[in-house]
């Protein structure tokens, strides 16, 4: 299955990145993203960028944004461009197709994010290094590595689930946006909590041990990722995809 998955990833990335022309293939957009996430924002934050654990939260957002731009195309795009049925008529198993589509989105989002992370460190070293190499503290680097992967996995899983049954890429993108908002409803509700409860929560956060909190968040992200993968696996049915 891994070989089949690799084949799909090869084609997906070739389609996304391999188009000719600076603007056609989104290459200009890619440069802007790398410059924005990897250089401008880190430099605005100053040298503490590579030492603060809060940077993990920043980087965790980036793969979500990157993946959301491409993942809704995974099945809805194939359906819209009439390539899905031919793919389904091939020897590939259901799981290989699904894993390939999710894998491509994860690799794209995670890979680009890690590229931005490295560019950020290089930019920091160049501007604030004073002859020293500035890099993230190892627990932070590990946290970035794991969180960005898990967030890319969540976004890819959610995007593929939405894309599986959408008739068009536009419909998939709209549904993905709504699902994204629903995921963050708890955050929007926070300001509405009673002041005493909010104070208690803030106190809890302030006293929390960084490692324990990071592990809890990692566990939650992992659980969410697994849930979306399972949903995608359940929803992927060849004959339903043809009828849709």
């Amino acid at each position, binding site marked *: 299955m891994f070989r089949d998955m690799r084949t799909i990833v*090869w084609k997906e990335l070739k389609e996304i990145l*391999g188009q000719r022309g600076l603007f056609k293939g989104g290459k200009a957009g890619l440069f802007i993203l790398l410059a924005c996430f990897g250089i401008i924002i880190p430099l605005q934050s100053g040298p503490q960028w590579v030492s603060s654990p809060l940077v993990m939260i920043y980087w965790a957002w980036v793969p979500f944004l990157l993946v959301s731009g491409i993942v809704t195309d995974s099945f809805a795009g194939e359906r819209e461009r009439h390539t899905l049925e031919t793919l389904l008529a091939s*020897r590939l198993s259901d799981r290989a197709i699904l894993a390939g589509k999710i894998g491509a989105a994860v690799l794209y989002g995670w890979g680009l994010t890690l590229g931005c992370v490295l560019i950020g460190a290089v930019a920091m070293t160049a501007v604030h290094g004073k002859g020293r190499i500035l890099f993230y503290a190892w627990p932070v680097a590990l946290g970035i590595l794991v969180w960005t992967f898990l967030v890319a996995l969540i976004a890819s899983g959610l995007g593929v689930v939405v894309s599986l049954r959408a008739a068009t890429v536009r419909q998939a993108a709209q549904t993905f946006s709504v699902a994204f908002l629903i995921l963050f409803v708890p955050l929007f509700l926070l300001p509405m909590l009673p002041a005493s409860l909010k104070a208690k929560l803030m106190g809890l956060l302030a006293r929390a041990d960084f490692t324990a909190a990071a592990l809890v968040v990692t566990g939650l992200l992992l659980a969410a990722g697994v849930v979306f993968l399972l949903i995608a696996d359940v929803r992927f049915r*060849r004959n339903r995809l043809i009828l849709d």
Partner: protein
Amino acid sequence: MSEIAIRTDKLGRDFKTVTAVDDLTLEVPAGAVFGFLGPNGAGKTTTIRLLLGLLEPTRGRAEVLGRDVGTNAGEVRALSGALLEHSGLYERLSAEDNLEYYGRIWRLPAADRKARIRRLLEHFGLWDRRLELTGAWSRGMKQKLAVARALLHRPRLVFLDEPTAGLDPVAAASLRDDLSSLAAREGATVFLTTHNLDEAERLCSRVAIIRSGRLLADGPVEDLKRGLAAPAVDVRGRGFSPLLLERVGALPGVARVETADGRLSVFWEAAPDTPRLLRALVDGGAEVEEVAVRKPTFEAAFLKLIKDETKEEASCSAI
């Protein structure tokens, strides 16, 4: 290898209240170019989807290359190639990359894959344009590339769903020639759907005709022509009186007689007996100017079959 490439037994598929395929029982011999014909909406594409395991049947079963589609659809797909309703090409990829992708999917070894891609692209006259994105190509070129993709992994069975639909006559003829020579060279069974009767007659050794999901007839084209379309003799002249027409109609082997615009058409149940007909006409006082024997055409056979079926349906609904 099984002698029968495809065998269906009362295969059926309903979509809510519509029956797309209705108790289809069919056998396709291995190595044949088999034409699956019918008007639009007859159930041809649904049948291909059922045979490839892309749709589950509502009833009945199908066996493809000796495998039960219900339980071994993956194996059936692994042994088959398909050009479905749409060409299914990735328009943001080059022609070579489209074939490279499917070559990898079918796990052709790298060296064989490259050689095979080159051979097919050269055969279809597309080698020089292999690096172009297919999105800018004409429909004819896309169809050729899609046929190349369907044959890339040397499948034992190829499904071609209306491969020449929408092509101009020149492109269609060229693709037909390619299909014909490739099928012979590759030795695969070809399951071809089309509503182009001329194409079916030229390419197919056997055909099946369906309408509203029901099988109306199947067999070699020549047999269907003989069995369904009567040969006719057209006579141009004068003096075809009602009495004479009655006498001609009573001749042995004559199925029916029609007159229009000074032309007498005599339809025969089997081979026409032209000398006897002419004798009867001359003896009956007619003046014969021109005689032409009309051979049965596949189109006439097909239309008769569809017309008879329509009549039967109408009488059933009247009851």
